[in-house]
């Protein structure tokens, strides 16, 4: 019995120190206003800091930007992954080469993908401007209208490999005899996709959407590398806002409120996922 405790103890120590303690501390930090200079004491403000931060321009802007980012990257990323998976699901000679190519971006990290995107997006040497005939002018990353779209594009490309792999696995799980029955029943290619493949794929699609959204809400690396939250806070996603609040403003009270908001959003999304999974019909054969 003691062995049981001994075996879980190391994990619990790590969790306690680096997950639960800081999590709880956020709530405490949020109750105090952090002074502009580190040596001054904190002042108790109670719940008003929650209110002021959550209604502030910083938060509303970050929240909106992050939601836009999620909406830009998740549906498109899944749809493209699915499209590639369907195309690579055919029985053609040499199809495995294409499958390898389509999953290749899975080796790119956020940093690697961001730097790769500089070949297209860099103001001086990027190819995108050249193709669009805008040599010499601003890169999309510096354009308030396009910056978030550009970063979203990089993110979609980076996630394409993983999306492809997950969708391919989902497609494999669609039973062959169902599709054959549909063929004999008279359904054409599109009808088979809509009436058989998509419904059988829906658990995978739900999973990918929810997990993808949760991960997208936590995006940081590509923002830090490509736009640093700009131009004019047009790419200032929530995690980057927290980062700036901690390191540029040294305001951990404010950061704590933002962090709690981030957690709350994650929690809501996770709850939605669990609820959807419960209600999902299990497709027993």
């Amino acid at each position, binding site marked *: 019995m003691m062995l049981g405790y001994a075996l879980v103890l190391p994990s619990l120590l790590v969790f306690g120190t680096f997950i639960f303690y800081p999590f709880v501390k956020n709530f405490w930090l949020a109750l105090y206003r952090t002074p502009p200079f580190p040596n001054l004491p904190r002042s108790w403000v109670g719940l008003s800091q929650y209110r002021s931060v959550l209604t502030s321009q910083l938060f509303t802007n970050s929240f909106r930007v992050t939601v836009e980012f999620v909406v830009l990257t998740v549906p498109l990323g899944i749809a493209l992954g699915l499209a590639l998976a369907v195309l690579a699901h055919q029985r053609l000679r040499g199809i495995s080469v294409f499958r390898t190519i389509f999953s290749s971006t899975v080796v790119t990290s956020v940093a690697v993908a961001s730097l790769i995107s500089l070949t297209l997006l860099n103001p001086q040497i990027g190819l995108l401007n050249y193709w669009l005939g805008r040599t010499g002018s601003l890169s999309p990353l510096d354009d308030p209208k396009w910056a978030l779209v550009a970063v979203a594009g990089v993110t979609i490309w980076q996630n394409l490999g993983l999306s492809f792999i997950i969708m391919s696995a989902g497609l494999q799980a669609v*039973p062959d*005899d*169902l599709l054959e029955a549909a063929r*004999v029943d008279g359904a054409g290619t599109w009808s088979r996709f809509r009436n058989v493949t998509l419904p059988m794929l829906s658990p995978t699609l739900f999973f990918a959407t929810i997990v993808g959204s949760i991960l997208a809400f936590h995006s940081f690396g590509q923002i830090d590398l490509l736009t640093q939250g700009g131009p004019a806070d047009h790419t200032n996603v929530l995690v980057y806002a927290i980062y700036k609040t901690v390191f540029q403003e040294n305001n951990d009270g404010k950061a704590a409120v933002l962090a709690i908001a981030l957690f709350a959003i994650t929690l809501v999304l996770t709850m939605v996922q669990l609820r959807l999974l419960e209600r999902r019909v299990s497709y027993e054969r």
Partner: protein
Amino acid sequence: MARVAFDHVTKRFGDVVAVDDLTLEIADKEFLVLLGPSGCGKSTALRMIAGLDDPTEGTISIGDEIVNDVEPRDRDVAMVFQTYALYPHMTVRRNVEFPLKSRNVPHEERTRLVEDAAETLGLTDLLDRKPAQLSGGQRQRVALARAIVRRPQAFLMDEPLSNLDAKLRVQTRADLIELQAQLQTTVVYVTHDQVEAMTMGNRIAIIAKGALQQVGPPQDVYERPANLFVAGFIGTPPMNIIGAKVVQEADGLAVSVPGARVPLPAELAHAVAARNLEKVAVGVRPEHLLLAPDGFVPATVTVVESLGHERNIACRLDDGTLVITRQDMDDPRPTVGETLRLTTEPEFLHVFDADTGERVDAP
């Protein structure tokens, strides 16, 4: 006219020959059973009728048309899969409706046809359930309903009873025969179960290793198997096959089996002589192998199985060959180790060429 025909059809998957030069014609309104062991190519042949696989060589016709290049949806056949292949996310109603919807049948007609099919198969109360909520037998009936709702030219059935338990299987067999009589449609039925084949088919086509072994009414196939494979495949317990040599006797040819020489009837002897055969395989069905005190073949009893209404007795001939014979319960029960004498009537002898396995027939 819904005849289905294979004309020298061969199907290869890489180096493997799944169907070998199959020529077979299935008449309109016929119930034809494709019978054979697992992996013999019968399912592949069925799938080629449906258009799910394409022949490597040869042509397939439905009605008067060659359909090699016709898409499954345009062939006007319906298929019942071994796994039923019901759409799990659709209700029974929508499952049965699907083939009609795919062909843009208008709503009222669709509803009427679906309800007719449901009534025929006793599914009216289950129309709004999903497949996961149904029992195996009910799911099978939904698969059937989906097939009949379109009134196709032909039904293709791929081992539809194999996933049912024994009792349900017997009941459903009878239901299927009744259904076909009612619908008067061509049925091509694949199975590995010879009882199903014998009880259900107008004709049975036996297939082994992709090649057609014999085709004919069940009784024909039973009484005159065309080769050793068919002889051994049809009938439970299987026909006894005994290796024998052809010997010349004073009054004609005989076959030398362990422990005796059995004279051949004149016509059979002619046929054997005409083919210059030296080695043959002699076949006798267990029910035709009788115990008689004056029987000419001695055999030692090894196992006695009592089945309630009859006995199966396994015995060994002098050279160790195992044969099985049947006995009524009224007859005295033999003991293990006892030596019996077996006999049969000449008309129940089947002679096969020992090398080719082909039946030797009186002309």
